[in-house]
């Protein structure tokens, strides 16, 4: 069932919406999800959609984007949209397990994914029956709704999303690709809630591909919880390619156990307003985490990466690198919070954030935030903001390379370090090509699939 709302005062209307639609929200959703809704809406009511007065949202006032005329789907009919039949999201030379979500609802998977024994990829709604224990154990455990109003809002409203479970010792060679499509002829608000569990000694790579397929205004609040259990290896690549009228609040919350090794890479190639919350909790010894991001923005786009690495236990290592290229009047923010708790001796934490501003009007706020309560630690952080290097530019041009081409070469040179961190070779190759295209201005920003570059519905750039 679709509900059209006019949001002016935010909290009041969202609370009313919640109360009015509670039966639908609960209908067919897992017990576990429903059990947290009341508490979540209370927190949300209390905190409200963050403005820039909230310290953690200092650089992004979300309130204006959650106002206006927005449609919400409280049942999954929009998931039966035939868009997934026409839409193929493929990386050359890369085989994936492909799954679609439309407007936040689990839509379809290829008829036969041929998953190894015991591996589960399904709607989180379907997980309620056969995997109630997993849901019970993990759902809501690492995304902190009491700290973040957007997580609370998601927990109150989300009805669907993907559920991925990889059992002990299973190594998935092919990545699981979750293709998120926003579409339809109305402006829309959507929630999505994913839960990913990699059990002991398992290995899993996930690609989250975010697309918009119609020119409407889209507001998305998604939360992905990840549990990397003992000695597991987990990668997530979030490829964000949405048109300029999109507002996305995307949270990835990773919880690590002993000897696990995780990597997140947020590749924001095109978007309207993007807020990425990336939180890694290293809750056991000998964990390793790699947290990366690349944001390319122009026009009036805004990208805010808020990262929080929690070194809760000793002998863990974190590597963090975010790079951004801002053109026109684009703005961006980076916050790198690193918490080294009292017991977390022999912690190594490295962080850097480098930015390239192509115009006078482009802006970046970069804020490292280190809190260190242990004494035997190695931490480093660095933030830089710069322009294209004139000397390098002249050197290239003096060899006969045009000014435009020299710019592309230098921008790419700046960005490549983050691309090199991708641990899936064909995806790396594809992203190289897309980033280069983006810098050349050849990237069909609004309607093409970020991964395969294919055209969509012929939407012009806004």
């Amino acid at each position, binding site marked *: 069932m679709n509900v059209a709302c006019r949001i002016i005062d935010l909290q009041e209307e969202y609370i009313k919406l919640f109360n009015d639609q509670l039966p639908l929200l609960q209908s067919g959703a897992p017990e576990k999800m429903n059990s947290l809704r009341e508490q979540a809406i209370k927190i949300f009511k209390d905190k409200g959609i963050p403005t820039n007065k909230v310290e953690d949202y200092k650089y992004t006032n979300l309130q204006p984007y959650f106002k206006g005329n927005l449609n919400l789907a409280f049942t999954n009919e929009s998931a039966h949209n035939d868009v997934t039949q026409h839409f193929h999201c493929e990386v050359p030379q890369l085989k994936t397990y492909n799954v679609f979500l439309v407007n936040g609802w689990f839509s379809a998977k290829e008829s036969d994914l041929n998953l190894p024994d015991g591996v589960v990829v399904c709607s989180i709604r379907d997980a309620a029956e056969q995997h109630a224990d997993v849901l019970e154990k993990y759902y809501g455990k690492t995304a902190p709704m009491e700290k973040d109003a957007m997580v609370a809002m998601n927990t109150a409203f989300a009805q669907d999303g993907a559920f991925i479970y990889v059992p002990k010792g299973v190594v998935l060679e092919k990545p699981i690709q979750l293709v998120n499509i926003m579409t339809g002829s109305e402006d829309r608000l959507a929630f999505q809630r994913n839960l990913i569990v990699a059990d002991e000694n398992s290995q899993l790579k996930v690609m989250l591909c975010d697309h918009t397929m119609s020119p409407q205004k889209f507001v998305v609040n998604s939360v992905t919880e990840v549990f990397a259990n003992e000695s597991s290896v987990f990668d997530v690549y979030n490829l964000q390619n949405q048109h300029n009228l999109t507002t996305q609040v995307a949270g990835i919350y990773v919880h690590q156990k002993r000897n696990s090794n995780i990597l997140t890479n947020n590749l924001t190639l095109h978007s309207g307003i993007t807020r990425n919350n990336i939180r890694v909790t290293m809750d056991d010894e000998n964990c390793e985490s790699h947290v990366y991001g690349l944001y390319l923005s122009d026009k009036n786009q805004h990208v805010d990466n808020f990262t929080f690495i929690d070194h809760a236990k000793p002998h863990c290592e974190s590597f963090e690198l975010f790079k951004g290229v801002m053109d026109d009047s684009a703005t961006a923010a980076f916050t790198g919070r690193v918490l080294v708790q009292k017991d977390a001796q022999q912690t190594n934490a490295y962080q850097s954030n480098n930015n390239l501003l192509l115009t006078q009007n482009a802006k970046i706020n970069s804020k490292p935030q280190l809190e260190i309560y242990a004494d035997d630690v190695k931490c480093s952080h660095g933030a830089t903001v710069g322009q294209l290097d004139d000397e*390098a530019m002249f050197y290239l041009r*003096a060899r006969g390379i045009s000014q435009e081409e020299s710019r592309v070469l230098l921008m790419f*040179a700046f960005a490549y370090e983050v691309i090199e961190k991708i641990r899936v070779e064909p995806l790396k190759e594809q992203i190289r090509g897309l980033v280069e295209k983006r810098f050349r201005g050849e990237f069909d920003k609004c309607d093409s699939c970020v991964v395969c570059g294919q055209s969509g519905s012929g939407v012009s750039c806004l």
Partner: protein
Amino acid sequence: MLVIKDLHAKIEDKEILRGINLEVKPGEVHAIMGPNGSGKSTLSSVLAGNEKFEVCEGSASFHGKDLLDLSPEDRAREGLFLSFQYPVEIPGVSMVNFMRTAVNEHRKYQEKDPFSASEFLKLMREKKKLVEIDSNLTNRSVNEGFSGGEKKKNEIFQMAMLEPKLAILDETDSGLDIDALRVVANGVNKLKSPENATILITHYQRLLDYIVPDYVHVLYKGRIVKSAGKELAHELEEKGYDWIKKEFED
């Protein structure tokens, strides 16, 4: 081929070139010497089109075209090459990609088809041999972490790839070991032809033993204050610049 007339250039209101006159004809080798800070690198930068310097007077033409009117890339495509005194490190741009782009932009300008990957690699192999450059260097980012001598060799490698009509070598001999100097000089000599010309900026006679100049000029305080044949370099090596400075002040 190159005609410079009364060229003046400044940076931040400081006049560095104060009336340069020079003519270079096809087949010639000119050496420019002169004390530190006299303006040798400034002259080469201005000729290559570095916008850091402002040309305030005079003219320079290259094959009859107004050189000062061309963008740096068009000057290069017209056949002007500058071997930088201080080559720039560009992390993240691979040598291969850099050279392929440069060579193909030259070809486009000459209305030729771009080289295919295999044609390009073949050319690279050939030229690498010519300048005896280590294969590993061309697999790295442009000049990144190259030693001083390796950077200079890399300049000559690029020159070999681009086959310019006029090469300006700004202290390409500085920092080279004895073997490397011979290799670089051989490289330059092999690329010499009756149609192209070379300007060597150097402080030492040594290079001129290998590449014999037709003319030697002394640049001092932004002007060419003396020009003669190759014997002038020997004289400078022996006596230094004092006598020229004195002559000039008088």
